[in-house]
């Protein structure tokens, strides 16, 4: 056979390989650094898929905005800047508290972790609240949800009604998809907060789990960083 020399194994062997860690390391890994880096790379490859997904939406949006620049400007008149600015602030704060939560997870200071996770959730819920109450509901009331009930007051705002419908289709799709990501983020962060609260050993000792959730959350913030100027700050 080929010249293969077998090295001594460091880990013990167990018949049951389900979720068993030795010194914090799962059975398929050799050491903690390999495991941590694998988790980080794995999460980033997932975020690559999210980037490509939102990227395609940004491209489609760019296409129509390029094509119908005037109408897009007119259509965006109805979108007030201040809820967008408030939401940006909220998400930035939540990003900060999230990274602080990871920081304290690394230092195993559970109380501070829980405080920061709670702050993140509060900011995220406030984000959704502002979005739904101050942005979506007024738009629904003003017949700006695309579909059979869409109505665009061309005389008052200018621009083509058809393009306005396209604009709002994109608006609701992109902010809606982002909002769903925020909602899922809230649920996941809530879940790991619960695990921290119960001091589940896996989450208290292995900071990468919290770090992976934080990576997801920062990504959500990233998408918003690009959504904000594109929808709320269109120049005339």
């Amino acid at each position: 056979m080929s010249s293969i020399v077998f090295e001594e194994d460091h880990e013990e062997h167990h018949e049951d390989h389900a979720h068993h860690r030795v010194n914090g390391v799962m059975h398929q890994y050799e050491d903690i650094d390999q495991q941590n880096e694998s988790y980080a790379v794995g999460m980033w490859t997932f975020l690559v898929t999210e980037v490509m997904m939102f990227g395609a939406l940004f491209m489609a949006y760019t296409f129509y905005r390029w094509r119908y620049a005037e109408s897009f400007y007119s259509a965006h008149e109805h979108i007030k800047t201040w809820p967008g600015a408030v939401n940006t602030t909220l998400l930035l704060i939540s990003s900060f508290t999230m990274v602080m939560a990871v920081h304290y997870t690394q230092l195993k200071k559970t109380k501070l972790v829980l405080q920061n996770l709670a702050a993140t959730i509060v900011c995220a819920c406030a984000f959704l609240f502002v979005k739904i109450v101050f942005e979506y509901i007024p738009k629904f009331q003003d017949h700006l949800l695309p579909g059979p009930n869409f109505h665009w007051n061309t005389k008052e705002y200018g621009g083509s009604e058809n393009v306005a419908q396209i604009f709002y289709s994109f608006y609701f799709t992109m902010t809606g998809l982002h909002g769903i990501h925020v909602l899922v983020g809230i649920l996941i962060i809530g879940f790991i907060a619960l695990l921290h609260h119960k001091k589940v050993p896996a989450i208290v000792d292995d900071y990468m789990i919290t770090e992976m959730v934080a990576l997801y959350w920062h990504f959500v913030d990233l998408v918003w960083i690009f959504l904000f100027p594109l929808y709320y700050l269109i120049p005339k």
Partner: protein
Amino acid sequence: MSADAHAPSKYKPGEIAWGAEHHIQPVSTYVKTIGLLFILMVATIGAAQFAIPDFKIGGLDIPGTFFNNIIAMTIAVIKATLVVMYFMHVKISTPLTKFWAAIGFIWMTLIFFILADYATRPLDPTIARPWTSDPGSAAPKMRGGPMSEDADKININVRPRQ
């Protein structure tokens, strides 16, 4: 990272999470980053209030809003870089992690080549048409219906049964 892993730890065992040794950043890093992010947010809102006027460069008409968009996107990219580098810890990550963090954004730019199709259409006389000012008017009307002008009067489109 693995070279550092064998350096003596300044934390007692159990004091920090597994493997966190060389990944703990000072809080000031995060505070400075969030501060910068807020400043940039204010900057981008401020910059959007002033529409740059149109101007000419040697005969070429350039809409001023083009530069507004560039400024807005540049600020957004800077903010994104700050978030990625410091909040997402990419700055202190291994080269492999850095690679995968970067490749997503780089590859995303490929999708924008779709726009090149629309950009080069005016060069082709057979399909060049100005983007209409009345969108939707060019939608094809229902064709082949019984009362339309191109109704199928000789039943050519009807499949003969066996």
